[in-house]
């Protein structure tokens, strides 16, 4: 299966060519080249998936296949960084997801970004991102993953800052990069600790279940936790940064300053789930050796999910609502992983999480692209400027509705199946957590339909020029994604992706399913009551909630807290004193040395009066003394 290399190389090639050609090519040519390459990549990915799932199943277990592996950098000792391609159920699944969404975004952007300055650059960056993300998922070892991890970070940076003349976009891109970079620091230290004890980077070795490789770490503890727990927790911090887990979530809402298709691709479907993917990738290690960390992941995920869902209910920028919804849904996936056990029915959470990742990618990309279509028509992100758009944009309206229903978990759309599995796994783990997650599911339905009703129903705004349906290049990807969002849930996921590779069919918990759907419908009805027609109800509700509403509206002031910390602690408390210290103390001491030297020289110079008689006096006195010494001593 060495042709899988092409899946990586083609986008890279496309990036290099587009990047070098820059403005020498016409925008349309560049876009077509990028899209064409991506369609080839997508075709290859589908073929890989088909080939993998049809051939790799040996004895009921999906094997890990490494079609290509080369030593990139050999260190002394046993450590080496390899570059290779690892095919196993989750990486193949991710290949499909990434190439599908990326292709859709490529096509969509042809129309959406038309006439933008830097269109070629945009496609080059998209190719770069696709390359990096694909490289991340097929990484054979944790260091390769880190390499591509950084690359997706920078592609995200470049794409968020695409409108580089806009200060908000620049600030957002900077924020995104630095926050994730900070998290990556944890990732890196985690890798260092892990590799120090295991002497390997390779996923195959780490996940082999061979306890011997962790032997040297056993018994080593630091501050009450085993050193392995520290390592895995630090690695999770890396994942938490990319996946915008609380408290590292602050960059994601701001990242919406980038072009909307980019938000769909990077900040909804693919890159932000890299953290989930990372945990899933190292799942055997987490579940076997550091279950404490895994439990922590579950609670972090659950809290983030609730936190983001509450904020999402109050935002008015439609992209931000979607961003918080993304955070919330990723929290779901983390919970799924966190509550999972290893193998068989125990591993439902793992399967559900991956399943949710898959379906979420589809319907969230759909929602973002739909929102993009709306923004394209209305030229604004604000809910207040919208309303009643269902008449003007029927296709968008329909697909957006499908997306909302899917995320709300309404039967038989894809979201229902994946979310239901997660809830089932959570109830298996802890009822309290399960009830919480069910509540979040209701919140999700509520805020999504708040969004939906505000855009497509509600009071009709007076538009400067009447909004119209988007061009075909934009609606086709929407329809395709809507199709996946609708029917994606029917895939028997448990047959393909499980924690131990062995297929199983989870029995559906009908009670739970029905209750979940009911909760979802309740949320929808609530939203309909409040937002379907222009009423005073929302204002009254927000006023009665008062303080809490304000808190949520301002995202619980986490941004302000960060700003305070960076401004006052980081810059004023660290950087300025250090540079002051350097300029004045270190530099001053060197200059002081020079001043002292000069002072001494001036003093010594005073002896050189230039008066012959003084010299002669000293000279004669010296002669006398010396003669005296020679003769009498």
């Amino acid at each position, binding site marked *: 299966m060495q042709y899988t290399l092409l899946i990586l190389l083609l986008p890279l090639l496309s990036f290099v060519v587009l990047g070098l050609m820059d403005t020498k090519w016409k925008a349309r040519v560049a876009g077509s080249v990028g899209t064409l390459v991506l369609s080839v990549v997508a075709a290859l990915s589908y073929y890989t998936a088909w080939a993998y799932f049809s051939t790799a199943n040996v004895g009921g277990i999906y094997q890990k296949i490494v079609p290509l592996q080369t030593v990139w950098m050999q260190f002394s*000792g046993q450590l080496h960084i390899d570059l290779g391609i690892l095919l196993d159920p989750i990486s193949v699944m991710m290949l499909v997801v990434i190439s599908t969404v990326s292709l859709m975004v490529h096509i969509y952007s042809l129309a959406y970004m038309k006439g933008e300055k830097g269109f070629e650059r945009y496609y080059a960056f998209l190719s770069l991102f696709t390359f990096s993300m694909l490289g991340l998922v097929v990484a054979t070892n944790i260091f390769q993953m880190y390499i591509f991890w950084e690359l997706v970070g920078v592609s995200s940076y470049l794409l968020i800052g695409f409108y*580089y003349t806009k200060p908000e976009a620049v600030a957002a891109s900077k924020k995104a990069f630095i926050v994730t970079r900070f998290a990556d620091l944890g990732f890196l230290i985690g890798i260092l600790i892990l590799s120090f004890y295991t002497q390997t980077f390779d996923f195959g070795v780490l996940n082999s279940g061979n306890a011997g490789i962790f032997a040297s770490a056993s018994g080593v503890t630091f501050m009450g936790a085993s050193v392995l727990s520290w390592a895995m927790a630090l690695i999770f911090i890396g994942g938490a940064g990319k996946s915008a887990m609380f408290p590292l979530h602050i960059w994601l809402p701001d990242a919406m300053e980038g072009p909307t298709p980019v938000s769909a691709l990077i900040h909804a479907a693919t890159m932000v789930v890299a953290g989930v993917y990372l945990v899933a990738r190292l799942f055997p290690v987490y579940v076997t050796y550091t279950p404490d960390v895994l439990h922590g992941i579950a609670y972090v995920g659950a809290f983030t999910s609730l936190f983001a869902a509450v904020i999402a209910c109050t935002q008015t920028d439609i992209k931000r609502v979607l961003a918080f919804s993304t955070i919330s849904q990723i929290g779901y996936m983390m919970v799924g992983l966190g509550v999972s056990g290893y193998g068989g029915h125990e591993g439902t959470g793992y399967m559900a999480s991956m399943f949710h990742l898959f379906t979420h990618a589809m319907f969230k990309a759909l929602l973002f692209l739909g929102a993009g279509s709306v923004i394209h028509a209305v030229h604004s992100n604000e809910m207040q400027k919208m309303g009643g758009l269902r008449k003007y944009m029927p296709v968008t309206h329909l697909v957006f509705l499908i997306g909302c229903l899917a995320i709300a978990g309404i039967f038989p759309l894809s979201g229902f199946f994946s979310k239901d599995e997660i809830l089932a796994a959570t109830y298996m783990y802890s009822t309290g957590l399960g009830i919480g997650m069910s509540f979040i599911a209701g919140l999700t339905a509520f805020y999504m339909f708040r969004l939906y009703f505000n855009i497509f129903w509600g009071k009709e705004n007076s538009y400067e020029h009447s909004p119209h349906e988007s061009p075909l290049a934009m609606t086709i990807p929407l329809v395709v994604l809507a199709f996946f969002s609708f029917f994606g849930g029917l895939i028997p996921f448990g047959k393909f992706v499980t924690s131990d590779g062995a297929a199983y069919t989870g029995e559906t918990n009908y009670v739970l399913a029905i209750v979940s759907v009911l909760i979802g419908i309740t949320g929808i009805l609530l939203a309909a009551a409040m937002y379907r027609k222009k009423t005073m109800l929302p204002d009254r509700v927000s006023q009665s909630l008062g303080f809490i509403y304000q808190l949520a509206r301002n995202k619980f002031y986490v941004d302000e807290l960060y700003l305070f910390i960076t401004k006052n602690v980081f810059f004023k408390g660290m950087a300025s004193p250090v540079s002051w210290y350097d300029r004045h103390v270190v530099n001053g001491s060197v200059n002081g040395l020079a001043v002292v030297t000069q002072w001494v020289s001036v003093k010594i110079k005073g002896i050189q009066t230039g008066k012959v008689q003084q010299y002669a006096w000293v000279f004669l006195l010296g002669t006398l003394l010396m003669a005296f010494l020679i003769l009498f001593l």
Partner: protein
Amino acid sequence: MSPLLIFVLIPLLMMIALFFTNNRKQVNLISLSGSLLLLLSAIALVVLFWRERTAGNTAQMLFAADTVWYREFNIHIATGVDGISVLMVLLSAIIVFTASLVSWRIESMPKEFYTWFSFLAAGAFGFFISIDLFTMFFFLEMSVVPKFLLIGVWGSGRKDYSAMKLVLMLMGGSVLVLTGILGIYYLTGAETLNIVELAHKNIEQPAQSILFALLFTGFGIIGALFPFHVWVPDGHSSAPTSVSMFLSGISMKLGAYGAFRVAICLLPEGAHQLAWIFLILSGFSVVYGAFAALGQSDLKYINAYASISHCGLMFFAFLIFNETALTGAFLQMISHGLITALFFACIGMIYSRTHTRLVSEMGGLMKVMPFIGVGFIIAGLASLGLPGFSGFVAEMTIFIGAFQNSGELQRWFTIFATASIVITAVYILRVVGKVLYGKQEHQAYDSLADAYWWERVTMITLIAAVVLVGTMPSWFSNMIQDGLAPLVAGLVK
């Protein structure tokens, strides 16, 4: 006479040729052809070296030659190269080539400028190819003095102060180095100054530690180790662009290279004894430099402090004493040399157009000069350690190597030092965001020209080198390990 001496001869011949020039065109022609010749010779050297090695030549130093200079004190002109010095020569050649191009249109006295610059280059090349302590020191000094003139005459800002400070501090470093060299010479029986032969001789313990402290501090001053780094910010900021490139690209590497070749390799026991002090200093240097860079407002100052941070990492890696970290240290030398040269080149280009280096005065330059902007961003991304560029490879090799050390102190300091990658990201992105992105500060910037062809060649050469190191690190690490292999046995305990 060794064939390696052409690296010294070419710059000297350039000086002679420059003497007979009488207009800018001729000066440019000679400097371009000379530096191109140097670059080609360096590439040829790499190829020849690798061919010799694959042919099975296992001598530690290839192309070695030894000419007696002054018999009484065993002073020889001994030259030879191993994998490390070959790469250093290549690095110097790339920097000299690009730096010559950057000053293509230097305003005043081009003839004299290039004459002194060639002299500087001769010193740097000579340092890397010599394997005799005296010759090494000779070339080290040769590369110090012209800096005074180059900064003092062609510099900007407080150039007299900076030139004086830089040269005095470097001279101070040289004094310590000279003392150390003499100590080594006499304590090993005053028989030889050849570093290959000296490596087999032993010096008694307390003396070793003292000599190590002297030499490491001396080279540390040249290599900008905290707290001896104060010449770096002033020197870099006052120097003309090409000299800044040379300073941070090669000069600081002279210090690091010497610290390893002389201080660590010849005095391993002293090194082990005192490693902890310098480990703390250099580990601190890494984070300190990064923080200090964060607090600056002048582009060159920012990059100068970034250099301090990155050079601290080299010294840090040296003191870990394992092959991986040492490989990383040399990768970092190459990587930092290239990246920082690229950075200074871009800053110089921006400065020559906007006539300011204050970050607050700039903005939105990406639109006006996209080529330089892209180069600047690439330099920034490479500097903050993005995979695919050399910085990542070097830093990661150092971190992985350093973390393999069994000492608790070493590992804690590695974790401490890794924090720099975040801070680096902060100040780099801050600068990129302010200078290139955002809205334009002055309308006058609209009419600024993008890069000229010589500037494009400079940037493309450097970027290509950075990407090559970043994507094909094993070529370079193999060369380095080739040089390290005979040395490392005596170092690793």
